[in-house]
Every structure is written in C-alpha cells, then in structure tokens.
C-alpha cells in the first residue's frame, strides 16, 4: 500500500501534498476541539500513531502459509475518532518515511491521502451507518473492507495516471510505467482478495475485545455541530485534486488524448529515454563502451575524473581510523 518514491511524478506528489494541507488543518482544528473535551486525547494521538506502526509491522498469518499485515485505519478511527486517526496515521507515515525509510518521502502526501484520509473516513462512515441501523459490527466489517479497498483503488489511480501525466516527448513514461488498465486491477486484486479480508478480521477482533473489556473507551461522537462546512470543504477538495493533478503536469509532458492508446501499450523506456532536460545522455551506451554519447567529451572526462577522485576519497576515508575524540 505504501507508494515508494520514484513511482509518482514530482508534480503529482506536490499536488497531493498541497491537497493534504487543508485536510490536515481541518483535522488539527477538529482535534483541538476534541482535546478540550478530553485531555487524554493528546497522549492517545501519539499512542495511536505508534500502535499503527506496530500494526503495520505485525505479520498476520493467512491461509496458504504466507503473511500479510493490516493497516488499522478503520480501527483507529473507531477507537479515537476519525480526525484524530487521520493525524495519528499521518504521524505514523511520517515516522516510517523519515526515520525508517519505509514509503517515500516525496510520496508522503499521496500516502497520507490514501491511508490517513480515505481509509479511516470511508471505514468510519460505514461504521456510523451500521450504528444507525443497529448493526455496528457489520458496519465496521464492511467499513474495514471498503476502506482499504478504496484506498487501494485511489493508489492504483494515482499510479496508473503517471504514464499519462509524465512522459517524454516521444511518449515514454517517466515514472510508474503502468497505465490505469494495469495499475488499478493489480492494486485492487491484491486487496480485494487478501488484504481486505485480513484488515476486516483484524479490525473486528480487536474491536470486539475492546468493546467487551472497556466499552467506554471507544470514541464517542461529539454532539453534532456545523458539520456541513467541513464536508463542503472536503468535497470541494476531492473534486479539485484530480484537476490540479492534471493541470500542474503540463510542464512536464504534453499530454494528448489521442496518444493514450499508444502510451499504454508502450512499456519500453529504453529506446527514447532519457530525453531529459540536459539533452540526452544515452545510458545504454554508457555501459556498452566508455564514450559518453551526446555529451561534450570534456564534460564526460571531468565527471569521470571527479568521480574517481570521489571514490578514492571515500575509500580512504572509510578505511581510516577515527582520529577525533568522542566526547
């Protein structure tokens, strides 16, 4: 589910990160209100974040001998409230990206949208519906399943749009090379068949345990206030996001609908890439012979020399003993 760096174009990453800013702002405001009611929400945020980290790390057995892991978005939303869950999961993703190298740093916005917004909110909405109809458990089960699958769907769309959004003049994709017709089914299949069920089972069982032991520690919804405003803002964003995604990409590639078919069929980067901004270094040639095609020879020499010096420097440095005293 984590989208690593290099799969999404910088423009997409940027757009999604910018799109996340208002959501985070709303979340922070909402949580501050919640904090006034219950002071313990503050430590709970941090705890929920580390709990989510552990949940994502914990291997669950699945029939057939392999393992999968749950994400816990829906679960957290039900336990501490959807807005708090959004913040907690954001923090988890930040921890993973910044300190543990899990998931991309640039793709942070995209990951946050999928896992910290879509998953908890879809899940929580289903749970609330279920509660209304007096079957919270069914609502939760459906929510957990739908939540992770919706998130996977959106991730698939983000990935699948890349060949359309970012490609070279000749049509070779610059980032994720798979179009919607491959990325979306691939993401969905894995989640519909396996991960969704794992998530559902995990969520239900933990919920059951908590409900049995300490029903009061589940999140109690606040008395209804002006929810419409937030909803409107979010809906507006939801509509704006894909627009921005498309609009801001024009600088990187000229996208024509007519090219669509051709693009999706195109799986090979080799022939045309890299037609980068620095005027084409044909990197196949780089490895076949030492001449660096498409570059002034002098620049190539300089780069090579610098590189050699650098490698030696690093080697020497790496083999040295530490001379400075540790304090």
């Amino acid at each position, binding site marked *: 589910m984590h989208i690593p760096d290099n799969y999404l174009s910088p423009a997409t990453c940027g757009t999604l990160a910018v799109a996340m800013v208002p959501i985070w702002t709303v979340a922070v405001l909402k949580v501050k209100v919640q904090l006034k009611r219950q002071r313990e929400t503050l430590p709970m945020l941090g705890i929920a974040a580390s709990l989510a*980290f552990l949940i994502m790390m914990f291997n669950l057995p699945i029939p057939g001998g392999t393992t999968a892991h749950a994400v816990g978005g829906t679960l957290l939303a039900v336990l501490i409230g959807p807005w708090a869950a959004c*913040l907690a999961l954001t923090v988890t993703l930040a921890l993973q990206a910044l300190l543990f190298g899990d998931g991309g740093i640039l793709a942070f916005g995209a990951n946050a949208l999928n896992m910290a917004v879509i998953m908890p909110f879809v899940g929580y909405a289903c749970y609330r519906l279920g509660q209304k109809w007096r079957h919270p458990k069914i609502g939760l089960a459906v929510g957990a399943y739908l939540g992770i699958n919706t998130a996977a769907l959106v991730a698939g769309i983000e990935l699948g749009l890349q060949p359309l959004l970012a490609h070279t003049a000749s049509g070779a994709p610059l980032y994720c090379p798979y179009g919607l017709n491959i990325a979306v089914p691939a993401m969905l299949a894995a989640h519909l068949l396996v991960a969704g069920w794992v998530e559902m089972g995990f969520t239900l069982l933990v919920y059951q345990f908590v409900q049995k032991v300490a029903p009061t520690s589940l999140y109690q919804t606040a008395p209804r206030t002006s929810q419409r405003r937030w909803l409107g803002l979010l809906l507006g964003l939801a509509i704006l996001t894909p627009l921005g995604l498309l609009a801001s990409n024009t600088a990187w590639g000229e996208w024509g609908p007519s090219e669509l078919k051709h693009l999706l069929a195109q799986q090979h*980067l080799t022939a045309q890439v890299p037609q980068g901004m620095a005027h084409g270094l044909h990197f196949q040639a780089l490895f076949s012979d030492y001449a660096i095609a498409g570059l002034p020879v002098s620049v190539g020499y300089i780069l090579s020399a610098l590189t050699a010096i650098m490698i030696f420097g690093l080697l020497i440095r790496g083999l040295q003993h530490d001379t400075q005293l540790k304090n």
Partner: protein
Amino acid sequence: MIPNLKTKPLPTWLTVPNHPVKSKRRASMQFLSRNQHHLRHLLQRLAQPAPVQPSSWPLSPQINLLRLGLVLLLIASVHSFVWLWGLALLLGLQLLLLPPRQLRYFIRRWLLSCCIAVIIVLPSYWLAGPATVVFFGVKTSLMLANAQYFRLTTTFQDVLAGLKAWHCPNVLIMTLAIAMIYLRMLGQHLLLTTEALDLRLVAPTRHPYRLIGALFGNLYLKSYAYALELYAAMEARGFNGHYAKPVGTASHWRDYLSLSPVLILMGLLLFGGH
C-alpha cells in the same frame, strides 16, 4: 518462618504429570516467532540510534529538512544520468566530511536498503527492460542515500525542531514525539507479551486471529491506561509540548551556503532546459 498450617491438599490434576499433548499441525504459530524477530530488530534500532555526527558544521534544523526535500525533488524530476551524477557528487562531498566510522555505518545501511529496494520496490520495472531497471535503480539508490544521510546526521530532536520552525502545528509535533517514545515502550511490551503467550501456547491454536485480536486489543487498552500515566510522568517533569533544548546558533550564511548548490541546480533545471 512458615507456620505449618493445615493446608488444603492440592487438587489431584496438579499432582500427576500432564499427558504430553502431541500436536499434528506444524508451523501454525510460526508467525509469532517471526514477529518477535521483527520486534527485536525494531527495538534494537530504536535502542541504538544511528550514531549522530557531532555538528562540526551545524545547520539549522529547518534548513536541513528543506534541503532534503529539495534534493529528493531534484532527483525525482531529472531524467538524465548527468544530473544524477552531479547530485551524487554533491552527496559524496558531504559524505567526505563524515567520520570514518559513520561512513562505514552509512555504507552498510545504504547497501542494505538498496538491496531491499531492488528486491521489493523495483520488480515492476523489470518488465520494462533492464535499462529502465538500471536507471530507476540508480535514482532510487541515490534517493535512499540522501535520506540515509539525513537520518544519520539528524537527531530526532532536530527533526522536531525543524518541523516546528516550519510552523508545523504543535499537536502534530507532540504526537510525533510521543509516538516515538511509545513505539519503544509498546514494542517492548508487545515483544514480551508475545513471548509470554508463546510460553503458554502449548498446542497449536485453532484461532490465531482471536489471539491477535486479544493481543492488540489489550495493547490498546493498556496503552490507554499507560498514556495517562506516562503523560503525567512527562508533564511532571516539565514537559509542555516541546522539548527544551539549547538550540544551536547556526549563523545564517552557512545555511544558505549549504542550500545554494541545490538551489542553483534547481534553477538550472527549471529555466535552463527550455
């Protein structure tokens, strides 16, 4: 000392040895030991944070964070080897300033993460031909190297300070701080609980999922109880949402100097290409 009380006799089942239960199914609980392994690894990493470079050339934390973002953005947006090459040299220059021990540590960790990336992250590119794999492999490893360098040279406190300087809301920063603390504690707790569970799993369970539900449900509830205590313990010791730490008085020209190569390259990329 012990009065020889007239004690009730033990129940008979306690006085005869158990009939050993033979289990037929194997490997049903393997996932517990696998998770224990992961948890131990995590705890070890948390316990021995990467040795952080003594700041011989201190940058303000917010600039550090910005630099990382910009460099990664650059790497992600360029599509030629020459640019990557230049960026690699830039990183190499920084690496030269590292003490040897840390350099060795860096290289070990970097190679490891590259291997993992190549195995896990990149296979989808294999279909697209070897050249794509090489190109993206180089790109990814360069990104990983930069991220790794950041991790190696930045303390967690600095990340927090950087985020604060960029006006990240206090709630988020505090959550991050508490999450980091709790990760250690909950990780340790989960590890010990799985061990205790292991000791009492005398036969394969029919319901491993129910166990897992209990494990995490319990972890949540206990941590809920601990949350208040730990938070009070932190508050009791003067914690009020930010870590008081003497902030390094880095002069600004250093910050801008270290930022300049990235900015120049950025400018070149944006305006020079067309």
